[in-house]
């Protein structure tokens, strides 16, 4: 599970949960790899992200690097910045661990890079 995916996830469908976001991360195995950088892609995905949640998630697993906590203006033209974002979004993967609902504390296991977001009957 990449941090980009984490940024998109919520436990909101759980009964009694209002926001369900951002999910806490307990990382047991993290894999860092190199992937092809595409500046257009990064520029265009940034508006879809919750920047604060991205930074906090990366920081919580010790991988925020020197990614600024605030989104800078005119980032589309800042290749150095885009590369840092690329790294955090796509090159850091949680292979095993858990996601934690911020309201209920309910844990969602991550195994083989796949988070299990399925709820039980009584949680719906």
């Amino acid at each position, binding site marked *: *599970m*990449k941090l*980009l*995916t984490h940024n*998109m*996830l*919520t*436990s*909101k*469908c759980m009964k009694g949960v209002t926001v369900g*976001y951002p999910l806490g991360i307990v990382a047991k195995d993290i894999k860092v790899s190199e*992937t*092809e*950088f*595409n500046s*257009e*892609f990064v520029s*265009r*995905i940034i508006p*879809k992200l919750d920047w604060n949640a991205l930074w906090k998630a990366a920081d919580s697993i010790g991988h925020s690097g020197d990614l600024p906590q605030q989104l800078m203006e005119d980032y589309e033209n800042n290749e150095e910045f885009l590369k840092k974002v690329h790294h955090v979004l*796509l090159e850091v993967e949680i292979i095993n661990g858990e996601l934690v609902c911020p309201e209920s504390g309910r844990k969602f296991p991550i195994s*083989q*890079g*796949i*988070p*299990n*977001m*399925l*709820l039980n009957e009584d949680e719906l």
Partner: protein
Amino acid sequence: MPSFKIETPSLSHLSHEDYINVYEPAEDSFLLLDALEDDLELLQQRRPVLCLEVGSGSGVVTTAIARTLGAEVFCLAIDINQAACSATNCTAKENGVKVDVINGDLVTPLRGVCAVDLLVFNPPYVPTPHCEVITSLEEPLTRAWAGGERGREVMDRLFPLLPEVLAPQGLFYMVAIENNDVPQIREVLSALGFQSHVVKQRRVRGEHLVVLRCQKHSDSLE
């Protein structure tokens, strides 16, 4: 350089044993790929950055999209079936592409922030008794095709969630059959804010398959 074709990914890593629990790509899967291929120019114009497949099964469609659109897109796949999630993961890996996979129900694990630029869905569309949809919770493969009353029970649950998931200029492609009452599906989608068109059809062994392409009313195709 733009592609003109969508190559079918290799599935040689999946065996008969896998297909006990995971839907083996069939005419419906390939019709969806063909529809996407027909629209390749449109897709390349739209330049989606976030793609989602709901019910990815073997992963053949997501992998094909990831391979064709390359580093310009991030592909996400969701499946309720754990075996399908593993299969999707493997298919992506075997074909040299990266796809993130989520074990989940429809789009419920996703934040409703209108972020998805391309959403594809080959749903369980076969009309079955309602009880088969319930009992199939224990049988992963049945869940891949049992669609309940008019074959609509699963897709009807997705439709109301679409407005918050699909981006303003997002495209939604879905497979259905004539027996699902396609005109009524289009009415439901319209009431939710979507215009839709049947972009592909094929008669296969008694099933009249269609692919619907949908976009928000506010979005023009230019």
